[in-house]
């Protein structure tokens, strides 16, 4: 049974969430603030930490820094702020994922499962795709080049991962459409060139001379560094 450490000062929420996660097969330990959370971390060595951002004593960011000094356990931040800089700050400090309040318990549980399974698979590198300086985190759907985040639309993200998963192979526009939009949208084949061109504008250091996505004239596209 995986153990989850829940660090949040909202007693009502922690009690309800503890009960819910208990019902989902997780053991939970609750800490009311950052200091208590750090103590519990030493004592229990949890498999995953849920950490609230706004707390008295030591706030979530401060606590996250301390956690990362001593532990590699995955951390999901519970934040009431969904502003981009806050989220980026969380990732730069070593958070694995975040959920914005108000979240549904089912949604949070899905994230917990995803992070835990990623943690298990991370060793084999299956939940992230990395080629040279391009890194795609499949869990949080985030793309970075040299650590710099590249914002992509959901379609562009799917297109990139479809190509990256078959790195080195030539993928035809037909196959790309099936993978990205679904087989019923075969009419998009005529526009694949446009999607790829825009994707290159975002991910390639020099879109005129692509480094990642190459054309195989008459056949399709090949992702190769």
């Amino acid at each position: 049974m995986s153990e989850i450490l829940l660090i949040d000062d909202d007693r009502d929420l922690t009690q309800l969430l503890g009960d819910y996660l208990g019902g989902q097969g997780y053991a939970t330990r609750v800490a009311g603030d950052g200091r208590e959370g750090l103590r519990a971390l030493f004592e229990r060595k949890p498999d995953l930490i849920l950490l609230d951002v706004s707390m008295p004593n030591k706030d979530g960011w401060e606590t996250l820094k301390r956690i990362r000094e001593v532990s590699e356990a995955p951390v999901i931040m519970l934040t009431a702020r969904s502003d981009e800089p806050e989220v980026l700050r969380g990732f730069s400090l070593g958070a694995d994922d975040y959920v914005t309040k108000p979240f549904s318990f089912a949604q949070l549980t899905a994230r917990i499962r995803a992070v835990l399974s990623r943690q298990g698979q991370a060793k084999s590198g299956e939940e992230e795709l990395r080629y040279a300086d391009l890194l795609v985190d499949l869990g949080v759907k985030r793309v970075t080049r040299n650590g710099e985040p590249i914002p992509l639309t959901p379609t562009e993200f799917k297109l990139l991962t479809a190509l990256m998963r078959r790195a080195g192979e030539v993928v035809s526009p037909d196959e790309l459409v099936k993978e990205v939009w679904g087989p019923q949208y075969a009419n998009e084949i005529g526009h694949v060139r446009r999607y790829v061109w825009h994707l290159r504008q975002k991910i390639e250091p020099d879109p005129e001379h692509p480094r990642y996505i190459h054309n195989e004239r008459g056949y399709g596209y090949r992702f190769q560094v």
Partner: protein
Amino acid sequence: MTDVTSSHAILPGLRPDPQVIVRRIQWALPLVLFAIVAGYESWEHLILKGQSLADIHFTGEILFFGILGPVAVFTALAYIRHLLGEQWTARLELERLNRELELRVAERTAALEQRNAELARANADLQHLDQMKSDFVALVSHELRAPLTALNGGLELALQQTEALPPAAHRTLKVIARESERLTRFVQTILDLSRLEAGKFNLTLGPVAALPLLQHAVETALPDGHHPVRWDVPRDLPPVWADETCLEEIILNFVRNADKYSPPALPIQIGACAADGRIVLTVTDHGPGVPSEIQERVFERFYRGQRGENAGPGWGLGLYFARKLAEAQGGQITLRSPAFETGGAEFSISLPVAESPEETGDV
């Protein structure tokens, strides 16, 4: 104020009145001339030639050279003085006008500066108020989010134990959960709006395929299918340039509205077309339509067509939010009503077509 009109006044920066100098010369020069002529003629006639004072040559030359000559000089200088006087007066007048003008400009500049300062103060006050409003909205929404998390979570937890709950309690909890979800969406909309208005809303623009997005939005907004949907979307539509998530939010809003106002069993039409480098996506309902006098107002914040007991559910924010979202990504929302002879409303969003690459070696 100094009397600048007086011809004797010597203004700072001005040379002394030249008339005074000319007047002195006017008197002195004829006298000097007379003295020179008198001296010369006396020496010539009385000493050299030995003539008497009554000699006609002596008196004649004295009269001609010693008196008429200086009188002519005196008259000429008087005329010069007169001209100088006129010039001097004109100059003084010009100076006075200049000073008056400068004074008036200075007064106006001061008044303008004061007005500018007042405007800047008013602007700062308004910005401060706007910031306070945004902060307040953010704070309230922020403070609502934590209890909403516990409330939604608690309901989720309770609703999991269906068999342990009496049917009436289960029904009640379902209603509460639905309302809580609505409140959650409202808080999220308010927060998104305050970010949009503050220009802090992050958009990720890219090419978006219209048909899959429209179909996904319809599946989400009309899951029970009590309205038939008529599709009029060309198959070869080029992708639009938009933020995928926000565009879907706008279409969801249109479809939910159409669902709310369409009588059951009447179709909702979903259309798309390309024209002039833009793509227009439309959602048309067979509801009562929107009277022309309120067509612009339906996009206002908190505006609701019906009030009081007749009002349907809603906060009056959906279309305002949709328009703001559309504008943020270079789109334009329009309403056409009646859409048919029998009424109905057509909401459409026009967005640019995603730029097409030059003919390259691409597939």
